[in-house]
Structure formats: C-alpha cells, structure tokens
C-alpha cells in the first residue's frame, strides 16, 4: 500500500468474531486523547470515535439473538455527506489516503456535519476536555486534544499514519509498510475481528475480504461508497441490515 500512490484505507469488521468487549473503544480513546466522560455525560453526549452498538433480532427469549456492531467514521468515498455541508472547509478527504479528515482547529461547532452523517459517527465536545488531575501525563504526544465546542470523529488514527510516514521517510522508502500503519482499534481487538488495509490494492487481505461472500456496507444505497465493510455468516444479520430502520434496539 502506498501513501503517495492514492490509497483507499478501509477495514472489514467480522461481526461473527466481535465479542463486544469494548477494547477497540478504550484503545481508540487512549490513542486519540479522547477525554473521559463528564459526570453528566450520557450515551448521547459522550465521545466515542469507535462505538460498539448491539443489534438484536427483535425476537423474545429464548429465540433472541444479537450481534455487536462497531461503528466508526465510515470514511465515505463518494459525495461524502459531511464534507459538502461544512461551511468552512473543516472537513476534507485526503486524496492520498481516502481518509475523511476533520480539522478541529477550523471547526466552529455548528454541528451541521453531525446532522448530515447517517452513521452518527461524529461527536461534539459538549464539555471542556478534562482528565483527572495528573493524568494529562498519559496523553498521546502525537495527537492534540480538542477544545470544547468543536466536532471530532475517527480519522483512522492520523497520528499513527504520520508516524508510519515519517518512519518510511527516515528509512528512505516512498511507501509505508503495511504493518507500520494499523489503527489502535484494529491493533487492540482481542478477537482479531477487524482487518485493515488498502482497499485499492487488490492483493491486500482487506480488499479480498471486502469482496468476499457475506460482506456488506451500511446504507449502501445512499451511494456514499463507505470504506468500512462488515461481514457475517448469519442470515438474520443481513436481514436486519436490509430491513433498515424501524426496529427498537434491545438495550437502552
């Protein structure tokens, strides 16, 4: 995969392997300096770039089944909903990587992009980012914390991409090595449910998985060409995804 030849980084998440442990969410928060919840925060005001949802089959005990659905920015590749709406170009699609990048330093917090995102993958800083006293020491030096009142979201661990790029540069390589750039959630997943890589390169495992039987994307018909694929062998999961909205979730 290459940073200069235009790559299309994406991932395939195997829903049949995801145990819903939440390691990805924790690893993501640590990697990207996402602050702990304010005491008043709820599951609707928190910040979870990576968030694992639970989708039930809507049938009662003992036939009820559920699957865990990790949702992160789907990195839409075609009329990316959030990019077009941002009034001050705070969202950009990086041509080299295909990553949809949010620039918090330019965001004024109008939240239009959040209304635009059908995957609810964007999060607003409702509070000042606060770590318990002394815990600022544990912040990742590669990522700047965001201020109150701006929107943020998953950028496939930009810090790690830069690290990989500078490493490649230091070693005089033009392309970054596949295993040098792995987002925190992918690295952390105990079940190895997430496969990450360059979708543009047919040789990569991720590209093949994305084309494999049982792979699908959310809201495919919107034509957003998202670069996050899911796969499951379970027919009811495909059913539930096709039938779209309209089912109350089992939890919450």
């Amino acid at each position: 995969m290459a940073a200069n030849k235009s790559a299309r980084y994406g991932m395939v998440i195997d829903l049949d392997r995801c145990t819903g442990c939440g390691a990805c969410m924790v690893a993501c928060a640590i990697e990207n300096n996402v602050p702990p919840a304010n005491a008043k925060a709820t599951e609707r005001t928190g910040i979870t770039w990576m968030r694992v949802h639970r989708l039930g089959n809507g049938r009662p005990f003992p036939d009820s089944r559920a699957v865990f659905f990790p949702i992160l920015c789907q990195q839409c590749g075609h009329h990316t909903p959030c990019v077009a709406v941002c009034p001050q170009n705070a969202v950009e699609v990086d041509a080299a990587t295909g990553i949809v990048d949010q620039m918090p330093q330019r965001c004024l917090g109008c939240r239009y992009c959040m209304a635009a995102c059908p995957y609810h993958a964007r999060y607003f800083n409702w509070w000042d980012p606060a770590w318990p006293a002394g815990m600022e020491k544990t912040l990742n030096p590669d990522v700047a914390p965001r201020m109150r009142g701006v929107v943020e979201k998953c950028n496939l661990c930009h810090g790690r991409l830069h690290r990989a790029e500078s490493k490649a540069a230091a070693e005089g390589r033009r392309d970054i090595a596949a295993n040098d750039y792995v987002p925190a959630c992918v690295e952390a997943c105990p079940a190895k449910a997430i496969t990450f890589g360059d979708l543009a390169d047919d040789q990569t495992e991720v590209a093949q998985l994305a084309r494999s039987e049982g792979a699908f994307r959310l809201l495919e018909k919107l034509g957003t060409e998202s670069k996050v694929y899911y796969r499951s062998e379970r027919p009811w999961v495909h059913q539930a995804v096709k039938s779209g909205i309209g089912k109350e979730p089992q939890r919450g």
Partner: protein
Amino acid sequence: MGLGRRDLLKLVGGGAAGFFLTPVPWRLIDGVAIRTESWPGVPDPPRGEVRTRYTTCTLCPAACGVRARCVVDQPVSLAGVASHPASAGVLCPAGLCGHHLPLLPNRLRQALARKGDNFQPVGIDAVAGAVATALADMRQNGSAERVAVLDARPGRTASLMYRRWLRAAPNGTYLLAPSAEATAPMGIDIARTGTVLSFGAPVLDGWGTPGRVLEARKTFRLIQVETRQSRTALLADGWLPIRPGTEAALALGIANVLIEEKLYDAAAARNASDFAAYAALAAQFPPQRAAQLTGIPAQTIIAAAHDFVGHGPAIAIAASDPGGGPLGEDEQIAIAALNVLSGSIGREGGFLPRGEASRPAGFEEAALAPEQGIAEVPDASIRVLIIDDARAAGTWCWSAIERKLAATHIVVAMTEFLEGAAQHADFAVPAPAYLEAGEDAPAPPDVPAAMFSLAGALLKPPPEAVDGAAFLNQVAGGGPALADVLKQRVAAIHASRRGEVFHYADASRTAVRDVKSAADLWKALEEGGCWIDHQPTPHEKPLFAILGDAPDRVLEAASGRLPADAQFPLALVPYGWRGAAGGAISPIMTKLYQESDLRPGGDTIELHPDTARKYGVADGHVAIVQTRCGSCQRRVRVDESVMPGVIQAEVGPSASGNCRPEALLNACGVAGDGTWRLARASLRRA
C-alpha cells in the same frame, strides 16, 4: 493650515485604506484563527523521547504480555505483545488502560487506621506494631485463634512468601480468594480442544487467557449453558438457556444420556473408583427429569450430549464469573465428571496437569502453610487477617469473610485504593499499584505448561507504599525482600535448564540451557520476557473418585439450588466482567458503560418485558430488589433477551457512581462455601 490638516487626514485615511488592500492584515487574521486553538481547558500532552518498554499485566491471572509506549518514563498507551505464548498479543479493555490506575485521584498514598466509621492517617510501623503485638499476645496465651493472609492473587512468589511466613505464625492460615481462578489444578490444552461445554464460564468475555482462547476459537465448538444471554452465549455455537441453579441437573442429565447410549470413554471411566455410584446418580436424571428441572427441552439435552462427545476432545468447564461468583463445589463436581465421560482428563486437547516454575530452596510445599478455601475455616476463628491486594477483592462478599473473624480482630488491607474489602479493614496499607510493583506474574490458570514472567516496574511507587512481603518482614522484624526471592527463583529456573525464554521485543525464543547465567535470564525477563516450560506430556491416568465423599450433596445440588419461594418469586442473577467488576478502574472505561450502552453498568438490572410488566416497572424506572439477605436499588432496563422470572444485575462500575457492588453482593447472600451465585428475590418500583 486647515488645508494642511485636511491633506494630512486624507493621507492617513488613504494609507489605512491602502493597507487593507494589501494581504498583510488578512494574513494576520489567519494567524489569529490558528491561535484560537489554544483554549484554557485544553491540556497540552507532554513531549519527550518516546520509548517502548515491556512488562506483564497483573490485573488478572491471565498475565498477558504488555508493550508500553512511554514518553520518557511515563507509559502513554499499552498494547499486547504479538505472538506471546499465552496472551497472543491481546489485552482486555481494563488492561489497555491499566497505566491510568497508578494516577487515579483516589489513590491511597499513606497508611490509614479506622476510627469509628472513617479512617485517619497512621504510620506503617504503627500498623506493623499493632499486628506484632496481636501475634505476641496470641503466642503468649496460645490461643486457638488464627493469623490469616487472604491472597487475592495466589500463585505468585509473594504468595509463597506469605505461606512460609504463616507456617511460622501461630495457627497461620493461608486463604484463597473465594473466586480465585489461579488455583485451578489443571490447565486446558485449548488449542487442540474440539468441543467446549461451558457452564456459565465467560469463555469469550474474559476467561482464562483471552488471547489464547480467542485464537483457538476458530477450532473448537462452544456450547454455552447459561441463564443469561451473555456475550459468550451470543457467539457460542449453541446456547442452552438454563433455569438458574440447575447446572448440576443438566450435567447429570447429559451424563445420563452418555452412559445410557454408551457414548462415554470407557477406558477413562475405569480409572474412576466410584464410577458405578456416579452412574447410579446419573441414572436418576433421565432427560425428561433434567428437562423439568432445567427448563431445557429433553431433545435439546440429548442433542447437546451428542454434540458434546461428537467432536472430541471435549471438555466441560464451570469456571467462575467475576461478578457471579463460582458455582458451588457440588455443581463443580457434577460438571467435572463429564470430563471423565469424555475422557478429556490428562489428554491432548483436554485437561493437563499444570506445571509450576521451580521454587527456590526453602519453599518446598512442606515448608509452607497449606492453601485453604474460606469455607474450610471455622467461623469466628481469625484474630489477625491480612488481605493482599484488597482492590482485586472488589467482588467478594464481605459477609463471607466477616463471619470468620474472631470477636477481637485486626484486619489489615494491603491496597492501592480504599475500595472493596479495604473499606472494612481496620488498617489500610498503601501498596504499589499496577506497573509500580516489581513482582512476578503467576502462570495463567488455563495454560498447562509452567510459565514465569516478571511484571517489571515501569513507574516509581509512592514513597509510603510497601509490598506485602516487606510489610510482613516489618511485622516479623526481618526477612528476605521480595526482589531477592524473585532473583533466587529465577536462578532456580535457570538451574532447572528446562523450557525457553520468549522475548517480548522481537518475539524470539531462547532455550534456557543457552542462557549463560541466572543474571542473564533475570535481565531477559526484566527487559520483557517470559519463561515457558515444555508442554506437559499426557501421563498415566491415576485412579480417582468422581463424587468423592459427596454423592448426596451432589444429588441435592442437582435437585435445584433455588427452591420455589412465594415471598421471593424471582431469581437474582448477578454477573460481572473481569477487570471492571473490582474496585477502581480507569476513567476511560466510561466509554463502555456511560458514553455507550455497551455494558449496562452497575446501577442497572435487566428484566424481560413480561417480568417488568408483571411487577409494574418499565424501562428507566428505579426498582428495589429485595432478598432475604438484603436489598439494593437499581435502574430497570427492559430487554427481550432476559429469561422471564429472572433479574440480571451487573456487578461493575456505574455512570451514577452511587452504586457499590457490595449492596448487591450482600443481597445475594453467601452459601456455606463462600459462593453467592444466586438468590431468590422480589422486585418493586422505588
């Protein structure tokens, strides 16, 4: 003159206008835009040299390898160690943010002594003094009361030191935590297992060594027997939603099928001295009866039995759930017996006897106090109780321990936080936190091969903090330091010339016999490595009794733990998740239970819609759960996946923070053997 002034004004005005036509002011504004990034409330991450250091996780018995990314000396993120022989490059959520624990604001930084209901600062020597005088007093009038160490993390070198110290102490008693996983007598050769029949063990959600288990998941079939639709149940190949407290009945039901249909391993059965008695017991539980008791259709039971032995090697496990507590001893017997039938004991893909890293001289079993369960100690018999790592004891029922204490007693808690059992202690002694203690990690409970890894300290502990060994030395007035004993042990391992060293940094392995000196081995382990013995080879299967002395107790257990009770019609099923069920956790964990609904949280109960309707509560209501032993208040979540007539209650952190697990655990009541898995309960809206 006036004219002059006008000209001047014109000049200034024109100049100003002209200035605004140049890029300069706009450039300035652009700069200002960037400046707005610096905002009072936003902390600035510390910069500095970035290093990678290695250690071993001691937050749970899994002892996963840890790769720490440090800025200078401060870890900023933790990750697994790729291809680690046990953890296979995996850390659990709790492990991923373990580096936050030493920095938590509620960290205990000096010794405290109880005064009435609250604590006051006190010197550690004063604590040691108090213990010493108590011991002296006991020695003097040779009382029958005991000195006990309750070890939340048995199997460490420090545990050995406790046991040796207790041997010398009056009626020294070494107690295992009620739900200690680490003490399993046999490891599991999971990589080669064909079928796992799990009775409520959170196989895929923090059981044994997660990395190892999840890696093997591709190859074994999983049948989950559990009341709750746990994460494991969701991903299992088969889920048997069982009526609470009837696990033994199902085990015997399955045994019945296997014996009736001659599907069991006759050879293995021959090694059991009391197989006939066992068969007779099983005969009392034909599928229909088992079905009645467990609520699982007879056909399903029969199918499960076939499934179980269909793809060998097949193991049946009944490990504990950190919140739900272990199954009762008798259930465990009934379940373990299935392994006799499947012949999985002592064979590849089944249970293999666990090896142990060589011990230094002076730590032979004979020189140590025996390991005992709390149940084995008579009530009101403990005069001095020292609890090691009380934080990990966050999910013990204090009532189980309390009843063992003598009328006059001293309870000393070695702990990093005033959490869990420590809240009940007379003295709380600050202990080094995770990443601060230079200690060893016990071999993972499910790994058959002996393992030994150092959990090297990445951080300096607070000046006041002392580890358990040092404290006991202070009490006894002298003794070896933990570090020295560790060195001795490494030397012993080196001397044994067995096994190999796995280096975290480059995933390479070196045979111990190729390691020049004990010092080199120590260095290798301290820089990040673990010693692992060869896989133990299957050996001659010894004679043993399945039911031991407890056939009628097993029968009783199998007839159902929860007799119907008009006053308390519901079954209360507590459960927890490893790493968060205990006391203090990283604030980042709020992502899991507060900022998302991934984990219900320790302030909720889950009910089936019908149950909720029946008791007049709805989603979001606050309800009071009442049992014979106590009650607790929790928010209701209605969930169709819950078994009707069951209250699921999570033991863990909660967004509201006002809910401590004790309230629930004590409400659960404690069985004689110190387990608290189930209770009869009633429900009403608060």
